[in-house]
């Protein structure tokens, strides 16, 4: 029997700038499995983190923030550190050739870091919470997307 290729197209009218706030509460000392946080169609232009947010203790700095594309599981953000104070950054990814090979930064290839586009449902997970950290730690991570 021959192989098959089937396709599904999805799109959404842009909503301008979209913010998704995710309150994270560590119950277990190990990890939080991936949870759906919504969907976005555009560029991820901001990650805002507040490890002191909420009624619980300050989030463990060893905890990882893992944002993935829900359908494929492809990693979008793999932030391995909650800082001790609020911070923000604009995440980027390294571009590739049309064969998927990363382009190495060089004097002849600067600006290889470009905005990350997402399109569809997103999952958020947390991992590597220190075993010595008490349960009940809370923090806030917010994602800002620029849609059309």
């Amino acid at each position, binding site marked *: *029997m*021959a*192989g*098959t*290729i*089937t*396709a*599904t*197209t*999805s*799109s*959404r*009218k*842009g909503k301008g700038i979209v913010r998704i706030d995710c309150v994270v509460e560590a119950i277990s000392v190990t990890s939080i499995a991936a949870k759906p946080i919504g969907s976005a*169609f*555009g*560029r991820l232009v901001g990650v805002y983190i507040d490890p002191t947010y909420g009624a619980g203790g300050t989030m463990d700095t060893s905890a990882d923030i893992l944002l*993935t*594309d829900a*359908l*494929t*599981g*492809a*990693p*979008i953000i793999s932030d391995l550190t909650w800082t001790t104070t609020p911070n923000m950054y604009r995440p980027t*990814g390294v*571009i*590739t*050739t*049309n*064969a*998927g090979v*990363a*382009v190495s930064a*060089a*004097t*002849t*290839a*600067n*600006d*290889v870091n*470009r*905005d*990350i*586009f*997402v*399109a*569809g449902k997103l999952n958020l997970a947390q991992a590597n919470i220190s075993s010595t950290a008490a349960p009940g730690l809370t923090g806030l991570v917010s994602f800002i997307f*620029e*849609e*059309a």
Partner: protein
Amino acid sequence: MAGSITPLKIEHRSRGVVRTDVTITTGTDGSAPAETVVGVGFGRLVGVAVKGPASVAITVKDKKTGATVLNAYRPTTAVFGNTTTGDETGGAVDDLFTTGAAHGLTELDEIVFTSQTGSTLPALNTPYYVAETTGFAATTFCLAASAAEAAAGAGQVIVELDADISAATWYKKGAAVTPVLFRPTTVIADNAGTAVSAADTAPNVNRDIYVGGKLSVSTTGGATSSACTLSLIVDEEGIGDLAVTV
């Protein structure tokens, strides 16, 4: 009679950021599915996400012209990460493959070669099976063309090499692959179509790929009945990267 030029204009109303999810399944014999139109895109191809076994190399083309947009992309993380060579004759067992580290295979496992240097066989992108007993050890194995021929006994048929293999890459069917999301680019060209070489005076020659029309997906053959998911993200709205003029 003079020649003619006939134009056809295609316009497309923007749909914002568009995602096309493609499920690719190889045949029961590992054969590749036929080239298939998966949808349309009018804008920049800003994201490609891939999930699933490294069964195939994926090519995306502009359907109208056949021009390549994504060139034979194959996730590499499932490929065996050490050296592999093939010995036609001379050892304790003929047609024996030897790996630089434990290959982790089990007898009768299905494997696919993605490259090899030296022999006509094994063919690339074709399923083979680890032979039972014959030549099998932690760092050695022989191959058969089918599961039946791999089984020990009178019916076992080992794939014969016609020369030594100096290097080969392969993966085991179903080997785990880390999903990836990347932003493909292409090297710009001058107005005669010649690629611009990167230089101090010409940095940033890698630019987003624009598509405008139907897109098709084709693959190489691979392991039997293996599936993977390809997602294409096209920015039809032209959101743009303000910091970089691309």
